């Protein structure tokens, strides 16, 4: 019960007027900065506002960071749903159904569901963190390179289940993403790979450039094919009640929220798990367990609820490796780790013993951050949705300009703007020939870590690939991944047979 007492003490510390004020300010600033391209991912937003938080006392500063973190995450969902621009990797999956819902005039319910499912999942996350932290930490430390390699393999195999009509096209998209992810200097040996001698490619290609080109500009170019009067503006809700999810939406999403909450927490608890993996795996599991998987990708509300639930409960899980092992699971938690170190607090097994006045209020504030989001941003959804009321002839030039700003801001290089153009053309052509761009982006995100962990594993075993089967956890993940693919393929074949019979 001491854990529960500590958590209650943490809430008591976090819920002072000063702390709550800074947390709300953090959530607002995080949302405002988070919707801007180039600054949109929570890590960048946290990094920008870090100097501000460091002026505050440690507990207040860290509580404000929790507010910023949640604000930036919500902003990522906002731009993905409204404009099809995922400013962070974990928001990519929201483009599938969130943006489709926005096109159908249901942007408000999609955003509302994003905030509400996030709140529910955070509640699950905080409860799980309180009671299951020792168990999860024990499981997490048993994860070595082979287990992570299999987890990445699992993630990449799930891409197969996310592809559209043609698995071959989905796989091509995935392999293109993997190929793009290998560009740059090899971190093991320093060898140049596919750089063509250009210094600009030594550090590889940035996520934001790929995502802006494939999604934002690619979407604009496809929309421009329509006649002018047909794309004057995207649909915005007309009545106030249309801005929030209805009971039917909640009914459809309850399983997705439950699945997303559990999946997100456990992936977050893995050192290096990260919210991207959590949201993608959650989407795949929700889709594959749904009685109507064919609705996904066409505007299914549970396609928003599941990943957003995972994205938020992951934040609770991510605190386990961060606070108990000092291992950040994502870029955002890396910035939080930096903040802790700057405050002179060393995360590790002794943090909860030596600095309970910091550890528990931070955990409490992560939960309070989602409440702040719900209170602040839910009423503001009608305001955000007004973006859709901007006529398309004005909206698309703004998107194009912001894409340039985003691409240039990454490294201050015109070369990156040229890369943006190249990926924009690629994104447009891929859509023309019905190749889904999402597997490419997902493979690009997971590729480097997949390569790293596979190579580390083979180094450990003197190049013997049996290491992946000899270790029980990695073998189990491999078996689960193969079962998921077999089930998905079987379901696809069954549906094809039904479709053939119906003609």
């Amino acid at each position: 019960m001491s854990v529960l007492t500590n958590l209650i003490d943490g809430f008591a510390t976090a819920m002072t007027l000063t702390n709550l004020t800074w947390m709300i300010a953090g959530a607002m600033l995080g949302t405002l900065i988070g919707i801007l391209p180039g600054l949109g991912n929570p890590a960048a937003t946290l990094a920008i506002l870090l100097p501000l938080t460091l002026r505050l006392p440690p507990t207040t500063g860290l509580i404000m960071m929790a507010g910023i973190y949640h604000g930036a995450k919500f902003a990522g969902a906002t731009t993905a749903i409204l404009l099809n621009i995922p400013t962070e990797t974990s928001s990519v999956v929201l483009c599938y159904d969130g943006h489709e819902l926005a096109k159908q005039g249901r942007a408000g319910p999609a955003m509302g569901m994003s905030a509400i499912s996030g709140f529910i999942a955070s509640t699950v996350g905080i409860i799980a963190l309180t009671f299951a932290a020792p168990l999860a930490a024990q499981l997490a430390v048993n994860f070595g390179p082979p287990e992570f390699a299999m987890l990445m393999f699992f993630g990449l195999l799930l891409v197969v289940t996310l592809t559209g009509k043609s698995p071959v096209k989905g796989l091509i998209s995935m392999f293109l993403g993997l190929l793009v992810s290998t560009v740059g200097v090899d971190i093991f040996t320093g060898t140049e790979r596919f750089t063509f001698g250009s210094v600009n490619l030594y550090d590889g290609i940035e996520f934001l450039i790929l995502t802006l080109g494939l999604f934002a500009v690619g979407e604009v170019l496809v929309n421009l094919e329509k006649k002018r009067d047909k794309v004057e503006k995207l649909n915005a809700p007309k009545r106030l009640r249309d801005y929030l999810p209805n009971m039917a939406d909640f009914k459809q999403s309850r399983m997705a929220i439950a699945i997303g909450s559990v999946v997100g927490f456990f992936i977050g608890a893995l050192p290096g798990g990260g919210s991207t993996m959590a949201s993608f795996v959650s989407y795949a599991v929700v889709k594959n367990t749904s009685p109507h998987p064919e609705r996904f990708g066409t505007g299914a509300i549970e396609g928003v609820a599941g990943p957003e639930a995972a994205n938020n409960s992951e934040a609770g899980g991510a605190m386990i490796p961060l606070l108990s092992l000092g291992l950040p699971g994502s870029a955002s938690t890396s910035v939080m780790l930096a903040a802790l170190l700057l405050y002179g607090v060393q995360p590790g097994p002794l943090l909860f013993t030596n600095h309970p006045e910091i550890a528990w209020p931070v955990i409490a504030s992560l939960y309070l951050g989602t409440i702040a989001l719900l209170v602040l941003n839910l009423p503001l959804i009608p305001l955000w949705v007004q973006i859709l009321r901007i006529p398309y002839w004005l909206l698309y030039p703004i998107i194009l300009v912001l894409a340039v700003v985003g691409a240039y801001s990454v490294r201050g290089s015109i070369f990156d703007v040229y890369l943006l153009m190249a990926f924009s053309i690629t994104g447009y052509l891929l859509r023309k020939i019905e190749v889904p761009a999402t597997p490419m982006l997902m493979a690009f995100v997971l590729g480097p870590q997949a390569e790293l962990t596979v190579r580390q594993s083979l180094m450990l075993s003197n190049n013997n690939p049996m290491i992946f089967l000899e270790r029980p956890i990695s073998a189990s993940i491999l078996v689960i991944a193969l079962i998921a693919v077999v089930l998905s393929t079987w379901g696809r074949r069954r549906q094809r047979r039904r479709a053939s019979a119906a003609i």
Partner: protein
Amino acid sequence: MRRADVVFGVIVTVLGAGALVMALYMPFLSATTPGPGFFPRLVASGLVILGLMQIRQGFRPLAPEVRPVGPVSQLEKTVHGKASPREPGKAFLARRPLIVLAGYIVSVPLFGVLGFVVTTTILMAFLLLYVEKRRNLGAYVCIVAIPVATWLLFVELLGMELPNGMLHLGMLGI
């Protein structure tokens, strides 16, 4: 035969083969560690195989549509899983996106010369006046206001860098 699918398969095969040739120059395995060519060779080989499979699929009749998951192209038109006949005389690539793309690409080198504000103003003018044929007061205001507002927000307020161009260096005495 679906020509676009076959052409796509050929492009993927050629790209994969090119990447494979480059990857062959990178060490694959050393005594105890996988080399830098390990992953690229696997990926490039996969692309070649998938490209060939795509070419083969391009020659086969379309199967019934199942599970349109992910961002399926908005342009897709299918009737019971079979592609609907293309509108007569309709080109594979439409004119309007190509014009926008051309203007967008041409603007990139100008950022380094004219700077962000001037280049973006020209780009906005091109898009609103030429492509969209909007010649009203609102359009003229947007052409100037959006680049300036973007500059103020990102550079002045948030301290980010955007291209200054040569004008900033005083080449034209500005």
